[in-house]
C-alpha cells in the first residue's frame, strides 16, 4: 500500500490542477505555464539520463524534440483534421480522443530511432567528440525539416489546434493539460525505476568507469543504446505535447538555443538527480515568466544567474542527491523501497 503513496499524491495534484483549470481558478495564462512546466520536466529529466547519469554531454536534445513534435503533429493533422496539406481527415475527428496518446508515442518512437544516430557513434567516441555529434544531429534534424516543403519547410507546420478542438468537442476538458500531466508523471516514474534498478545502474557505471564496466560484465553498448533511445524518445513525446500547446511549430523553435535552455535546467537542478531536474524545471519556467517584464534583458539576467550558480554551487541545486537524501523523513512517504541492510 505504501508504495502507492507517491502515485496517489501525484494523482491528487493532477486532479486538483485539472479541476482548477476547469473551474476557472487557473486562467489560460497560468494553465499555459503549468503546461510548460510539465514539458520542461520531461525534457530536463530525460536529458539528465544522458548528461547526469551516463556522464556524456548531449547538446542536441531539441533535435529529438523536433522529431517527436513533427511526427505527432503530422499524424494528428493527417488522421483527424481536414487540411490543405493532406486533404480530408482519414479517421473520424472524434477518435483523436483515444488515439492522441498513440500518436504521441509514435512521435517518441520516431525520436528514439533518430537517437540511434547518436547512440551508435557513442560506441567509439565520447566526451567532447560525442557532444559535437549531438550538435550535428540537432542541425541535421532542423535543416532536414526546413527542406521538406510538404510540411511547410521553414515556414512551419500548423493545424494542431483543430485536433485539440475536435477532442474538446467530444468532452470539454483541457486535454493537452491532462496528457502533459500524464506523461510528466510517466517520465519521472520510468526514469526513477530505471536508475534505481541494478540494470539501470549499468548507465551510472559507464559514467564512473567505462572500461571497468565493460570488463566487469556490463554490456556498455546495450546500456548506451537504451539510455540514448529512452532519453530521445521521451524528448520526442515532450515535443509532441509542445506542438499541441502552441498549435504551430517551425524548425526555428528547435535550435541549439532550445537545447541550451534544457541544458541549463539540467545543470541548475544537479547532475544525476531526478528531483533536482524536476525542481529546476519548475523554478526555471516560473522565473522565466516572472522576468518577462525585463524583455530581452532577461537573457542577460538568467545567464548571469547561471554564472553565479557555477561559481558557488557547481554541482547544481541537488547534485547527485535526491530530495529523499536531503530530507530523510520524506523517505517514509516517497521512497518505500527495499530496506538498506
Amino acid at each position, binding site marked *: 500500500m505504501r508504495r502507492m503513496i507517491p502515485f496517489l499524491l501525484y494523482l491528487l495534484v493532477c486532479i486538483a490542477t485539472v479541476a482548477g483549470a476547469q473551474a476557472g481558478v487557473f486562467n489560460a495564462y497560468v494553465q499555459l505555464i503549468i503546461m510548460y512546466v510539465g514539458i520542461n520536466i520531461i525534457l530536463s529529466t530525460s536529458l539528465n539520463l544522458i548528461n547526469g547519469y551516463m556522464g556524456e554531454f548531449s547538446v542536441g536534445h531539441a533535435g529529438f524534440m523536433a522529431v517527436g513534435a513533427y511526427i505527432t503533429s503530422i499524424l494528428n493533422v493527417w488522421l483527424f483534421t481536414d487540411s490543405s496539406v493532406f486533404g480530408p481527415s482519414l479517421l473520424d475527428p472524434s477518435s483523436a480522443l483515444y488515439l492522441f496518446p498513440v500518436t504521441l508515442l509514435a512521435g517518441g518512437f520516431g525520436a528514439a530511432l533518430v537517437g540511434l544516430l547518436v547512440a551508435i557513434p557513442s560506441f567509439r567516441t565520447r566526451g567532447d567528440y560525442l557532444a559535437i555529434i549531438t550538435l550535428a544531429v540537432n542541425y541535421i534534424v532542423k535543416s532536414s525539416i526546413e527542406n521538406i516543403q510538404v510540411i511547410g519547410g521553414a515556414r512551419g507546420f500548423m493545424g494542431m489546434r483543430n485536433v485539440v478542438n475536435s477532442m474538446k468537442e467530444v468532452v470539454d476538458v483541457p486535454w493537452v493539460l491532462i496528457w502533459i500531466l500524464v506523461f510528466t508523471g510517466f517520465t519521472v516514474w520510468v526514469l526513477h525505476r530505471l536508475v534505481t*534498478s541494478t*540494470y539501470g545502474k549499468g548507465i551510472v557505471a559507464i559514467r564512473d568507469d567505462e572500461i*571497468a564496466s565493460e570488463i566487469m560484465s556490463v554490456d556498455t553498448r546495450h546500456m548506451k543504446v537504451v539510455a540514448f533511445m529512452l532519453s530521445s524518445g521521451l524528448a520526442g513525446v515532450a515535443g509532441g505535447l509542445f506542438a499541441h500547446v502552441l498549435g504551430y511549430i517551425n524548425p526555428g523553435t528547435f535550435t541549439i538555443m532550445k537545447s541550451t535552455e534544457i541544458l541549463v535546467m539540467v545543470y541548475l537542478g544537479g547532475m*544525476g538527480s531526478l528531483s533536482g531536474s524536476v525542481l529546476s524545471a519548475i523554478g526555471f519556467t516560473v522565473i522565466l515568466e516572472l522576468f518577462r517584464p525585463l524583455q530581452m534583458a532577461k537573457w542577460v539576467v538568467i545567464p548571469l544567474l547561471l554564472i553565479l550558480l557555477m561559481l558557488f554551487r557547481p554541482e547544481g541545486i541537488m547534485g547527485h542527491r535526491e530530495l529523499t537524501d536531503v530530507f530523510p523523513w520524506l523517505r517514509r512517504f516517497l521512497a518505500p523501497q527495499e530496506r538498506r*541492510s
Partner: protein
Amino acid sequence: MSLLEIREVTHYFGGLRALYNLNLTLEGGELLGLIGPNGAGKTTVFNLVSGFYTATEGEILFLGEDLTGLRPHQVTARGMARTFQNIRLWNSLTVLENLCLSQHYQLGYGLLGAVLRTRSYHENERRIRKTAQQLLEILGLSHYADELPKNLPYGMQRRVEIGRALSLHPKLLLLDEPAAGMNPSEVDQLIDLVRWIRDEFNLTIWLIEHQMRVVMNLCEIIKVLDFGETIAEGSPAEVQQNSRVVQAYLGDEEVAYA
C-alpha cells in the same frame, strides 16, 4: 580440455611489439604468477586475455572457445574476472552496489522488468543482493556495505575489488598487481586472502606482481616476461636461479659494475 590456452600470441601497438610468441596453458587449479620488469608486457597479456585487446597474431582459447571477436563483457560472462592495477571501482556507487552491478550479465531481467518491477525483477534483485552480501560477509567488508569505495582505506578498496571479481563466479581470476601500494601488513593479509580464496572458491588464479615476496610466497608456477618475450618459466626456486631472470632484473654484470 584446458581452462585457458594461449597459442603463439604476438601483439603489436602500431610498430611496437609488445608481446612476442607467448604460449601458456592453464589446466585449472593453478596459482600462476607473471612477473617481469616494467614495460615487459604483463598487463598487455591480461588485456588480451580479458578481451579488451584483440591479439595481432595467435589465438586465445578459454574453455576450448576462441576469444577472438568477443567483447570483454562476453568474455567475463564465460567465467573470467579480473582486478586492475590502479583500482577501478565504481566510485559513485556504494560497496554493496558495486558487488551487485558486477552481476550485470546475469540479471535475469531487462528494461521492462526494471520499469514494471515484475516478480522476476524482485526475485532477481534479491538473489543478486544476497550474493553480494554473502561475499562482503566472508571478506569481512559487511560494515562497509553502504560506504562509497573511495572513502575506504587502500587495502580495503583492493579487497572490495577482489570481492567484485568474485561476485562474477569466475573460473579464472586475474589479479593485476594486487599488492601495489600496500604496506607490509596489508601485503601479509593479501597473501593469506589470495590463498584462502583459491581454496574456498576452488578457482584458478593468475596474478601479475612486482613484489617478490608475494610471488615467491604464493605462486606455484612463475612465468617471466621481458620485452614481450618469455625468458623463464618454472617453480619459484627455479626462476630465482635462472640467469636470464637475474639479468633482466639486475642488468648485465658488466653494466651493473660499470
